[in-house]
Each structure stands twice: as structure tokens, then as C-alpha cells.
């Protein structure tokens, strides 16, 4: 089926070429980082994880979000989603690919990456994250590919695929739970040390993943002959709404515990993020932007009329994307390091090479996504779905 990705319109090839160009820029930035070391990034002794790990965390959520089309179809027999499960699975493949790349570019010693397998360490959450992420990647590739080839041949997929599908559902929850455990089990980082972290991660994942899927469905409908369907998009919008409301609710729970208890360690990061401390306020405008877009998203999604109208739904999904991306793709990771263990503030801001590498990885993800969606959509067009 790969040949489907090799035939496309001019527009398709221009898009592919532009992605390749951004990937090349990212690759050269990475060569520079590989030679010089991570000192070319904005990372420091105090803020030792930054943009890379934050993107990784956000994208694990997007990957896990794919299960929101798989689960209703296979567990609840919600037939309408049968048309788009493949899009959810391929979105997950692209997102996990980016996750793995972001981990890789963050390593100080990438040539030793196989040490994680050569010295397996079950007490390390990172070890389990490696297992669940790679497992989820392979599950989605195998499931997506088999279901799609069966559909192309007009047959039902083989029964063993069904077993993998059932495994993939709890597996999706596991990838974001384990990723939350990377943070939630660390003593002395108050912003992360919260039992609701995994739940917050899942709520944000099930909002942002399906929101991106809605946007992708609209793109697919506009540029191809495959229509993912009005009902499908409507149901996804409902899922996004519930998940996003939960996400905001969970965040407010954190605020309550921190500020009603008045325990300094629990309040510090929130203060840094929303008002700044001692003149350090890099993230303040971003946080208020996230808050603003949260409100916009809530209004556009909760009001039935605007959720059902496509233009406002699109705006709502973009708002969900922006607010969850700032929350997880910037604030969560960096905020955990501020203030540092000495209650001092060292701020962080990504450098140009760091942004170049980040864009390169995103472009790689979009490349994978484009190729896989091209294949899926071509098959759908062929069978006249």
C-alpha cells in the first residue's frame, strides 16, 4: 500500500518537500548540538529538562487521544467511528514517533541509548515508558496496517488483530499514566508531586488528541474525496468537550489545594507561572494566553450551537490545542524546576538551535502523518467509503 504515498497531486508534493526542508534544518541543528553538547540549548543546571521533554509529554497525550475513536468503535460498537479509527491509529503512530525522537534529541549521550535495554532497570519509570511507548507504536502500526489492507481487499481483518486491538485500548491509557509517573513520583518537586497528575494528563490527552483529529478530519474532507462524516465529527466534539471540562476542573483542584492550604512549596510554581516571582516572569504571558484560550474553548464547546457549527467548532478545537499545548508543552515541565531545590529562580527559554530541532521533529511527525493519512485516504477513496 506504500505506493499510494508515491502518487499525489502537486500540492501534495509541495507539502512533502516543505516538510523535508524543515526536517533538514532540524537535522543540521541536531548535528550542531551533537557536536557541541546540550550547552547550545537554554537548559541549565537548574532547569535540566525543557522544550524537548515538554513536547514529548504533550505528544504522548496526542498519541493516547487516538484511543477515543478506537474505544467507542470496538468496545461500545459505535459503528460510525469505523470510518475513522484508522485516522486515530495513524495519528497515534505519528505522535509516538515524535515522542521517541524528542527523547532521543534530549539525551546527552545518544550513542549510549541502547544501555536502557542492555541494563534493564524496572525501578526506573523511564524504562517502563520506553516499553509502553514502543509497544504502543508497534500495536498501532500493526493494527492500522492490517485493518486497512483488509478493508482494501474488501475482507474482514484477521481475528488475531482483534486481540491486539483489545490490548491497545488499556495500553493507550498506560502510556500517559506512565508518562505522568515520570513526574508524579519525584520527591521535592512540588508542582509535580500530585496524585492527580495522571488523571490530569489523561483528561488533557483526551481533549487535545481528538481535537487535533477533528481538525485533521476537516483537512482530509477539504482536500480529498474521503469524507470522515458529520456524525463522526460531532461525536468527537462531544468527547473533546467532556475531556476538556475535566482537564480544566482538575487544574482548578490543584489551585484549590495549593492556595487554600497555603503551603508555600505548593503555591510557588503557580505564582511563578501566573504572576512571576522576584521579577522572573518569562511564562506569565503564556499562562494567561492559555487561560484565555481555555475560556474560549469552554464557551465554544459547551454551547451546543457553536459546538455544532463547523466554523466555531474549528475555532474551539484550535483553542483546545493552544491551551493544552502551553499547559503541557511549556509550563508543566519547566514549572516543575522553578523554583529550584534552593528556592532560587533560574529561568529557561529555548535557543534557536533548540527551536530548530524541535521544529524538525514536528516536521518529521507531520511527514509520517501525511504519508500514513495519504495511504489511508487513498484506500478509502479506492473502496469508495
Amino acid at each position: 500500500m506504500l505506493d499510494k504515498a508515491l502518487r499525489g497531486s502537486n500540492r501534495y508534493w509541495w507539502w512533502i518537500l516543505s516538510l523535508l526542508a524543515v526536517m533538514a534544518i532540524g537535522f543540521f541543528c541536531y548535528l550542531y548540538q551533537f557536536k557541541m553538547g546540550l550547552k547550545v540549548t537554554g537548559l541549565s543546571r537548574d532547569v535540566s529538562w525543557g522544550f524537548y521533554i515538554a513536547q514529548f509529554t504533550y505528544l504522548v497525550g496526542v498519541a493516547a487521544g487516538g484511543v477515543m475513536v478506537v474505544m467507542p468503535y470496538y468496545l461500545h460498537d459505535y459503528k460510525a467511528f469505523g470510518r475513522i479509527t484508522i485516522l486515530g491509529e495513524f495519528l497515534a503512530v505519528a505522535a509516538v514517533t515524535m515522542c521517541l525522537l524528542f527523547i532521543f534529541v534530549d539525551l546527552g549521550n545518544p550513542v549510549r541509548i541502547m544501555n536502557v535495554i542492555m541494563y534493564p532497570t524496572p525501578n526506573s519509570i523511564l524504562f517502563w515508558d520506553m516499553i509502553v511507548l514502543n509497544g504502543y507504536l508497534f500495536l498501532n502500526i500493526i493494527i492500522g496496517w492490517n485493518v486497512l489492507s483488509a478493508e482494501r481487499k474488501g475482507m474482514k481483518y484477521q481475528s488475531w488483530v482483534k486481540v491486539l486491538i483489545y490490548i491497545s485500548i488499556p495500553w493507550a491509557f498506560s502510556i500517559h499514566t506512565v508518562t505522568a509517573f515520570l513526574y508524579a513520583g519525584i520527591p521535592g518537586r512540588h508542582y509535580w508531586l500530585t496524585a492527580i497528575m495522571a488523571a490530569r494528563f489523561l483528561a488533557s490527552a483526551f481533549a487535545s488528541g481528538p481535537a487535533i483529529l477533528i481538525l485533521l478530519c476537516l483537512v482530509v474532507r477539504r482536500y480529498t474525496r474521503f469524507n470522515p462524516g458529520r456524525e463522526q465529527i460531532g461525536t468527537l466534539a462531544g468527547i473533546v468537550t467532556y475531556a476538556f471540562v475535566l482537564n480544566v476542573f482538575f487544574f482548578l483542584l490543584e489551585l484549590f489545594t495549593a492556595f487554600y492550604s497555603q503551603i508555600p512549596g505548593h503555591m510557588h510554581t503557580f505564582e511563578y507561572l501566573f504572576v512571576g516571582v522576584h521579577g522572573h516572569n518569562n511564562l506569565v504571558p503564556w499562562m494567561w494566553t492559555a487561560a484565555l484560550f481555555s475560556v474560549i474553548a469552554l464557551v465554544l464547546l459547551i454551547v451546543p450551537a457553536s459546538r455544532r457549527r463547523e466554523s466555531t467548532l474549528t475555532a474551539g478545537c484550535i483553542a483546545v490545542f493552544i491551551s493544552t499545548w502551553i499547559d503541557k508543552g511549556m509550563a508543566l515541565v519547566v514549572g516543575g524546576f522553578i523554583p529550584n531545590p534552593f528556592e532560587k529562580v533560574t529561568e529557561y527559554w529555548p535557543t534557536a538551535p533548540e527551536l530548530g530541532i524541535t521544529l524538525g521533529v514536528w516536521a518529521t511527525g507531520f511527514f509520517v502523518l501525511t504519508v500514513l493519512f495519504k495511504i489511508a485516504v487513498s484506500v478509502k477513496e479506492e473502496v469508495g467509503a
Partner: protein
Amino acid sequence: MGMDRRNFLKVAGLSTLLAAGGKAAVDILAPGDLEASMKSVPLSEGKRWAMVIDMRHLNEEIMDACTAACHREHNVPDVGNTKNEIKWIWKEKYEHIFPGQQHEYASEKYKDQFFLITCNHCTNPPCCRVCPTRATWQRSDGVVMMDMHRCIGCRFCMAACPFGARSFNYGDPRKAPEDLNPDFPPNPDYPTRSKGVVEKCTFCAERIAKGMMPACVEAADTIKEDVLIFGDLSNPDSRVRKALRANYSIRRKPELGTEPNVFYIV
């Protein structure tokens, strides 16, 4: 003192390990003795190393001497900026080391007093718990070790350490600015590191294996004795135990349950 074959191999094994940093090198030079020598790296089994810092007698001169001695001993370069700096033992103000203890009416003496800090060699170290390659691990004598030749540079241990004890080689330490490190590496007997690995205090594992005091303790002793006391917590007659019996002592962030093994007499 005579040295029998076994002891010789221990030292040979250890120094080869430190110098060449590879199992292969040991296997070639002393086949089969690697496990034996690794096992006897602690001075003896069942010990628990600890440090007691007597703040009543410690001053900034001694602290600076400790830092200088340690960083020379372990080839820790001055990278020339605080963003990416590497430090194993250094001084920090009271209010930053015991953040919860600070109050506005505290005596000026304590408020601005510098304390000497380093890795606490916690009994329950979160850094070892999170390391995905066991590049950092706890020895049976309590020393939290760091294998800079296995570390993949994921920096999970830096996130996990509640004491900020760990540093990462953001750049190549061998290419640190020459004007700041004129004779780098100052100690040819200790390995230099590659870029992209985490490092920290190891309680001078290479020195205690030879029955020597850690470099910081030795440096402090030359200025004033008994300010830094190093010894074995499991031995009731050790100097650390005596000091802890006779004085009130505190540890950093005891509420986190990591059980630090660096104690402060205040």
C-alpha cells in the same frame, strides 16, 4: 605494610577500572578478578559512610578550600558560567539550604551564613530509583556512585534529586575555557569526562578505597581539624557517631524521607 596478591589485584583492578573505565581492560589485565575487585571496592562490608559538618567552626575560607581541593582532585572544570556550571561541593546560604526554616526574625548571623553542601549520599536515594541504566547506584557501604561511562545523559536523576547535588556536562569538560583551567586536567590519576553525562560527589570512593580521607576533609583538616568529620555510622565508636551523640544535628529536607547522610551541627 606488605601487600598480598589479593590486595594488589584489588587496587590494580580498581585503578584500572577508574583509569580505563572499562570491564574489558580489567578482563585483559586481571582476568576473573573483576568481580572480586568490584566487590571489595568498599573498604569493608556493612559500613555506612557519613559526614558531619560542624558549622560552629566552619568558615568561608575552609569551604572555599574544600571546593578547590575537591574540584582539582576530580578534574571538575570551571566552565565559566553559572548556567552550565559543574560543582561537587560548594557553599550556599542558610536560607537556601534550609528553605522552610527561614524566618524574618532570624539572627543575621544565620541568615547570611554560608553552609557547605554536597551530595547527601541518601540512604534512600531517589536518583538511583529513577536512573534507567543503573549508571547511578548505591553501594553496600552507602556511597551513591556514578558511572560516567554508562550514563546516557537523560538527566532524570537531576530532576529527582531534591538537593540539587547533580551537575550535567552540557559542554565538553575537556574543552572548558583554557584561561580558567590553565592546567586541566589537574589530576592525571582521575578520569576526565565526556560531554553529556551527569556527575556528582562520590565521597571520594577512589580515596576511601585506599584508606584515605575524602579530599574535602583533608583540605579542611589542614586549616582546622574536626570541622568536617568523615566516618562510619555503623560503628558506634566512630568519630561521626561520637560527634552526633554529643551535639544537636540537622539534615536537609528530612521530611522527604531520603535519609541524608550529611549532618550539620549548628
